[in-house]
C-alpha cells in the first residue's frame, strides 16, 4: 500500500526525516511511535501530499506523491494534530463540503456522509455547529472528514491528543473499526496507546525508523535485560536472613545474572527486597522458585515501565538523559529555522 524509499526531508539545513525506507501492507494499522520532533508529523504530511519530500520516493497504492499528487490525495484521508474544522458550519454541511472537495460526485455524497457519521457516532450532533462541540466530538469530526471520501489510506496525526480517558477509549475503538476498509497510519508519542491500537509499531527517532515490529515483539525487545524487583516475606526469619534466603534462591534461577539488595517499600519482620537482572522475562520462573522454597512473594514487577524502557531503546536512558535531551533539543531549536504557523508545528 505504501512504499517509501530513501526518503529525506530538509527544512533549510535541518534534516527532519531521512534516510527512511519502509513498506506498509494494505489493511494494516501502523503506529508511528516517537518523541516530539522525531519526524512523525513531517512523514505523515508527506504521505498526505501536504509537503513535498526533498529526495527519495513515496508511493501510495503505486502512485508517486510528487508525480501525481492529486491522484494520491483522492486515495488518502488526513487528520492533522489540530483537526481542520470550519467552526461556523454544521457537522453535516462540513462533511458534505469535505467530500465534494475530495471529488465525491454529488449523487454519492449524502450516502458517504451518512456512513462517516454512523462510523464516528456523530448522529446526535450532525445538525449542530462544530464550534459548539466538545474537544472529543471535534476530534471525531476530524476523523469523519478523513474517511468521508472512503480513502484507501487514513493518516491520523496524534488522534488522541488532548482527549480525556473516556474519549481515549472511544477513539481507540473508532480507529480499530477502520481496520479492514482502510489502511491506517497513526502517530503518537505514547507507547501504550500505540500498542493498544496497532498491528505493527514503527519506532522513529531523528527522522529514521529505529525499530519495527508487532507489539509483543517490541515488548519482548524492551524487556530483554530489564530489572525485576521482588519483595519477599520469610516467616520467623530476620530481615537479613530473609534477604540472604531470597538472594540464594534467585541466583539459582536459570538466566539470572545478578541479584542485589534493594530498598523495600514494605516493612515488617522477615520482609526483604531484591533486585534481579537477567536475560529475558524472568518474572514467572523467579516467582515459582521462591514459592516452591516456601518464601512468600509479597510483590514482584519490572523496575521500569514500558515508557522508560522505550526511552532506553531510543538511547535516551540514564539519569542525565532528560537534561541531555533538553539541551539537545534547545540546540536543535536554536539552529532550526522557525516553522511558519502554516506548518502547524511540524515535527
Amino acid at each position, binding site marked *: 500500500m505504501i512504499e517509501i524509499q530513501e526518503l529525506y526531508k530538509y527544512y533549510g539545513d535541518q534534516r527532519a526525516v531521512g534516510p527512511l525506507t519502509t513498506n506498509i501492507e494494505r489493511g494494516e494499522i501502523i503506529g508511528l511511535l516517537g518523541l516530539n520532533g522525531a519526524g512523525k508529523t513531517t512523514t505523515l504530511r508527506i504521505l498526505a*501530499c501536504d509537503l*513535498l519530500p526533498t529526495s527519495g520516493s513515496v508511493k501510495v497504492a503505486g502512485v508517486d506523491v510528487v508525480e501525481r499528487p492529486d*491522484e494520491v490525495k483522492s486515495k488518502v484521508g488526513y487528520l492533522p494534530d489540530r483537526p*481542520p474544522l470550519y467552526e*461556523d*458550519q454544521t457537522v453535516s454541511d462540513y462533511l458534505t*463540503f469535505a467530500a465534494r*472537495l475530495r471529488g465525491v460526485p454529488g449523487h454519492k455524497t449524502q450516502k458517504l456522509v451518512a456512513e462517516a457519521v454512523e462510523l464516528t457516532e456523530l448522529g446526535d450532533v450532525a445538525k449542530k455547529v462544530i464550534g459548539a462541540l466538545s474537544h472529543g466530538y471535534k476530534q471525531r469530526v476530524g476523523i469523519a472528514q478523513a474517511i468521508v471520501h472512503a480513502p484507501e489510506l487514513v493518516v491520523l496525526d496524534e488522534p488522541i491528543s488532548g482527549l480525556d480517558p473516556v474519549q481515549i477509549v472511544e477513539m481507540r475503538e473508532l480507529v480499530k473499526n477502520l481496520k479492514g476498509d482502510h489502511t491506517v497510519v497513526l502517530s503518537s508519542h505514547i507507547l501504550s496507546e500505540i500498542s493498544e491500537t496497532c498491528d505493527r509499531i514503527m519506532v522513529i527517532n531523528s527522522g529514521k525508523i529505529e525499530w519495527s515490529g508487532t507489539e509483543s515483539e517490541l515488548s519482548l525487545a524492551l524487556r530483554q535485560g530489564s530489572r525485576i524487583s521482588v519483595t519477599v516475606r520469610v516467616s520467623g526469619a530476620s530481615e537479613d536472613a530473609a534477604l540472604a534466603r531470597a538472594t540464594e534462591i534467585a541466583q539459582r534461577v536459570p538466566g539470572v545474572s545478578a541479584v542485589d539488595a534493594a530498598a523495600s517499600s514494605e516493612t515488617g519482620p522477615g520482609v526483604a527486597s531484591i533486585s534481579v537482572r537477567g536475560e529475558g522475562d524472568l518474572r514467572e520462573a523467579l516467582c515459582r522458585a521462591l514459592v516452591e522454597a516456601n518464601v512468600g512473594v509479597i510483590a514482584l514487577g519490572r523496575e521500569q515501565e514500558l515508557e522508560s524502557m522505550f526511552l532506553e531503546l531510543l538511547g535516551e536512558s540514564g539519569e542525565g538523559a532528560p537534561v541531555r535531551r533538553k539541551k539537545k533539543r534547545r540546540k536543535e531549536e536554536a539552529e532550526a529555522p522557525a516553522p511558519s*504557523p502554516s506548518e502547524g508545528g511540524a515535527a
Partner: protein
Amino acid sequence: MSVAFLIARREFSSYFRSWIGPVLVAGTLLVDGLLFYWLNGLDQKRLSGEVLQQFFYNASGPTMIAAILLTIRVLAEERQTGTMILLSTSPVKDRDIVIGKFLAAYGVLALTTLLSVYMPAWLFVHGKVAVGHIVVGYAGLLLLGAALTAVGVFGSALASSQVVALVVSAVLAAVFVLLWMVAKATEPPLNQYLGALAVHHENFRPFMQGILQPSGVVFYLVFTYAFLFASVKVLEARRWQ
C-alpha cells in the same frame, strides 16, 4: 472550476454566518449614503450628471476599503486556524483555491456595490441622468473593486496572520492608489507609466464620467489577473518550502 465554485460558495455563506458580512455590507452602504447626502449638496442646484459623477467618486473609497477588509481573512485565516490543510491535502489546484476565495469576497463586494443603486435611481427619477452613465459608473466601481479584491487576496496569501495580511494589503493598495501623486512629481516618460499604473486616478475617472474606455477595462482586468496569478504562485511556493 467547479471546485473553485464549491470553495466560493462555502466562503460566501461563511461571511453571512459571522458578523463580518452584515457589518461590512451595512457599514459600506451607510458611508456611501452619508457621503451621497453630505458631499453632493443635494440642497443646492447642480446638474444631475455632476451629482452622479460625484457619487461614483465618493463610492470608490468605501469600495476599495471594503475590498481589503473582506479579503484579509480569505487565506490568512485558513492558515491561522489550520483549515488550510483541508484544502492543501484535497485534490484541488492552488488556482482553484485562489479563484474560489476571490469569487467569494468579490461576490460580497459586488452585492454591496449593487445595493447602493437606489441612490443613482433616486437621481434618475428626480433628475436627468442617462442610464448609460449609471451602468458605466457601476462597471467602473465593480472593476476597481475586483482589482482591490485581488490585491487583498495576494496580501492574505503572503501573510500568516490576518493583522499582517491587513498591513500588507493596505500598503499595496495605498501604493497603487497614490501612484498618480508620484507620477506628478516625476519627469516624462516615467510619469506616464506611473500614472497609467495608478489603480484609481487616471483609470477610474472616465468611468465616473460615464465614458467607457476599453483601455481602462483592460487595465483593471490585467491588474486583477496579475495579483491573482501572484497569489497562486505564493501558495505553490509554500508547498516547496
